[in-house]
């Protein structure tokens, strides 16, 4: 292993090795903040960039994979169908790390079906929704996460209630449901690290204001509103297995969740009574936050017991993509036998 120096990580790479191409999104777009958090987290975790696949749908958000980790493989797919591509790729190569990037339109409208099914199927992946309450790329239509009664320059008033993607994920049996805010790197990073460690589909619904079409102070997806109403559920510190520094937290103040790979997230409960493994409690908490018009952030729901797609498929250890003819083509005798049995 390469020795780490001050500006290199565990695998000897520098932060610049995780950089992407220059963004073409609007200056100040929340999506850019998320890209830079991904860069930081991948660097800090010492992830081999070539092992990562960045898969997205269509939208401003879905363009983001171009703006982080150029050394990773990327797949900017079709609108609303990132989850199926991610599932196929993971089935082909279980050693990959999937970062799925989507938008609230890409996930909540055209892709709602695939979103819920990938949660149910439990494809190992980090599923990031860069949630701005609008269709950015098609210039400002309301998305399903837009607030009821919200006003828009071109489209008037939104009469329909929003869908809560975290709620949808919990109901679809997603085992890792978190929400955060693009402008809060302190919370986004540990959540992202935890999500990467989770063996299954992990949802990060990140409120990511659109500076061009949805940044009025009245919108719950605008900067000002979120800054005022952000109600962090936990102070989360991610502890990679390599550094055992969990001791600095006093017992009683923390709730330790062990992840599949042995790493742990330590949750400091601001609200002592909150238990992220309590499904109905999580649903209740989302509901309460909604009625109080506050925004719940943090790890909202966690279920360590779900079995990931790769495990339920009982796949060989070696990635299917690496199998060669002798693994894949049964011998001639077997065909003869089948032929004579027909």
């Amino acid at each position, binding site marked *: 292993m390469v020795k780490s120096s001050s500006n290199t990580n565990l695998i000897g790479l520098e932060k610049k090795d995780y950089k992407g191409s220059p963004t073409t999104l609007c200056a100040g777009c929340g999506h850019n903040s998320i890209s830079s958090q991904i860069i930081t987290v991948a660097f800090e975790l010492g992830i081999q960039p070539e092992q990562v696949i960045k898969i997205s749908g269509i939208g401003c958000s879905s363009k983001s994979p171009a703006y982080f980790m150029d050394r990773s493989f990327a797949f900017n797919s079709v609108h609303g169908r990132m989850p*199926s591509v991610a599932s*196929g790729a993971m089935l082909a190569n279980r050693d990959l790390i999937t970062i799925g990037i989507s938008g609230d339109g890409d996930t909540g409208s055209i892709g709602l079906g695939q979103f819920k*099914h990938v949660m149910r199927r439990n494809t190992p992946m980090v599923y990031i929704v860069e949630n701005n309450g609008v269709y950015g790329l098609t210039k400002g239509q309301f998305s399903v996460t837009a607030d009821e009664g919200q006003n828009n320059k071109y489209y008037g008033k939104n009469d329909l209630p929003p869908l809560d993607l975290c709620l949808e994920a919990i109901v679809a049996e997603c085992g890792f449901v978190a929400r955060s805010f693009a402008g809060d790197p302190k919370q986004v990073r540990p959540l992202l690290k935890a999500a990467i460690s989770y063996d299954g589909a992990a949802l990060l619904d990140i409120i990511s204001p659109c500076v061009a079409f949805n940044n009025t102070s009245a919108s719950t997806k605008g900067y000002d509103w979120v800054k005022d109403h952000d109600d962090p559920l936990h102070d989360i510190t991610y502890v990679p297995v390599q550094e055992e520094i969990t001791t600095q937290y006093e017992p009683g103040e923390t709730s330790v969740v062990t992840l599949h790979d042995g790493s742990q997230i330590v949750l400091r409960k601001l609200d002592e009574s909150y238990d992220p493994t309590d499904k109905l409690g999580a649903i209740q908490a989302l509901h309460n936050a909604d009625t109080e018009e506050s925004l719940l952030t943090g790890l909202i729901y966690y279920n360590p017991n779900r079995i990931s797609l790769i495990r339920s498929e009982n796949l060989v250890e070696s990635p299917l993509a690496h199998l060669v*003819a002798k693994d894949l*083509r049964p011998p001639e005798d077997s065909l*003869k036998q089948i032929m004579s049995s*027909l």
Partner: protein
Amino acid sequence: MVTKLKANNSEDIDVIQKNLIINDFSIQVATPNGSGSQTSNLVLLRSLFKMGIPSSGKNLFPSNIQGMPTWYTIRCSQDGYVARRDSIQILVLMNPETAVQDITNIQSGGVCLYPENAKYNFDREDITYYSMPVKRLAKESGVSSALRPYVSNMVYVGALASILGIELLEIESALSWHFKGRQKLVDTNMPVIQAAFDWSQENLTKTDPFQAQRANATDGTIMVDGNLAAALGAIYGGVTVMAWYPITPSTSLADSLTQYAGLLRHDENGKATYSIIQAEDELAAVGMVIGAGWAGARAMTATSGPGISLMSEFAGFGYYAEIPAVIWDVQRVGPSTGLPTRVSQGDLTTCHWSSHGDTEHICLLPGTVAECFEFGWRAFDIAEQYQTPVFVLSDLDLGMNMWMTKPFDYPDKPMSRGKVLTADQVAKNGFKRYFDLDGDGIPYRTLPGTNQPGAAYFTRGSGHDQSAKYSEDPQDYVENMSRLRRKIDYSREKLPAPIRELNESASIGFVGFGSTDPAIIESRDRLAAIGVESSYLRVRALPISLTVSDFVASHDRVYVIEMNIEGQLHKLIRIQYPDLATKLCSLAHCDGLPLTASWIVNQILEKESCHNGKIKQ
């Protein structure tokens, strides 16, 4: 009028024997759907086949689970013709609902077999009626009343065995094969068959001319449906990811794949070397396939028309971003739900040009179950070699019905995984995803996870340059699209070549594809017998081989025969060879039923009569 055919004199029997029709008839069984006649029908078919008589069986069924009329036709043909026949010689009439029409359809001199208490109209005097005490024999079988309708179907098996001379031993072993050796099930059914046989021997006097006689014309052949053949092909082709969504008539392809992959594709620890996912819909099924193919799997899906429509955006993506995928389309009648349980070849142009924008997909067109197997494995090689989605167009008749075939040949070529660079190769030579290094239009790719800086690239459906970078540059777009054109053209003569039967003395030629093959073969023989010689070319892949032009050019007229309404192959050939358009005539017909030789013969006679006086009639 019910003819109780008893006590004919020996003179009658003499006449019958002189005019015996041996191993050349069609049996049609008419039952209500869901009445459990499948076992009986398959057992009959298999017994005849195992007696060495060339036979084929076709299920003509409604889109319904229980109650609607369904027919099963078995054709025995001494000469080995396996296409559907228009005429019915022997009708087993178990469904009162269709009685009137079914009786009308029996060929003069034919047979009608019916349950004794049925109140049909027995007006026709040119056919033979045999009644069977179905209810009584079913009751006497001792099975529970719930199972009686089902064992009732065994009665006609026994009666037919007696009337036609089907060997009971073959019936018993067909039953045993059907029930995978479970003796208990054989023991439930066989006594009913035996009782019906005995009763018929006692009580029916044969006055019809039809006879099944042991032959040796099926030696060395097996019987199998095209969907099983395709599934086996995929398994021997090394499929690793299959994602699908249920739809008739492709479902049994996925089912067979599940069954046989379960037997053949686990490692020594019992771990699977494949994954089969029942997706939430076809949008997801093809998305998984594209994702898996991109990441290095041999990935496939199987669907039918409605699914093909849903898959089109990803098909175009796969074409443009150059991702291997195999898409089986087991065609049924469209558009929309159409006739979902009936056969058609109506998806040819849809598949070839699937997606918006300029695409032209490689399509493989199996015409036999052996080709379903062969193209089943070959499709992966082609998809990976050309880095593109490959459509394989089967149909309901080929896919779901039973066909005689020689045992399948083990793949005669090693797997070809196409131009995939390793980390070392990238390190040594660099890598530009969409650069045409070899001049064949096919670029090199790397697989996600290839651990080498420079190995990664950005896959997108938006405009890109040779390095896979985002580009809206007009020149980049044009260069890329014309390279794709070159790539597809390069594949043209390397895909399965047309099968040609050139007849020097023929002035007309037939062109067809897929499951119309047996009807075309039979029609050519019948036409030749009346002096109309023909050549035949069967297209097996798109883009169309350039050899088709020679074939067309060397005949006065070429009939393009296909099971659709628009004459899709005809149009494709005309587009490719506008100069030959006047020589090309479309014979397109689609009514949901497998094409018959008679239809072709009649069409040709009609069309040709205005061209020459060669036809002796």
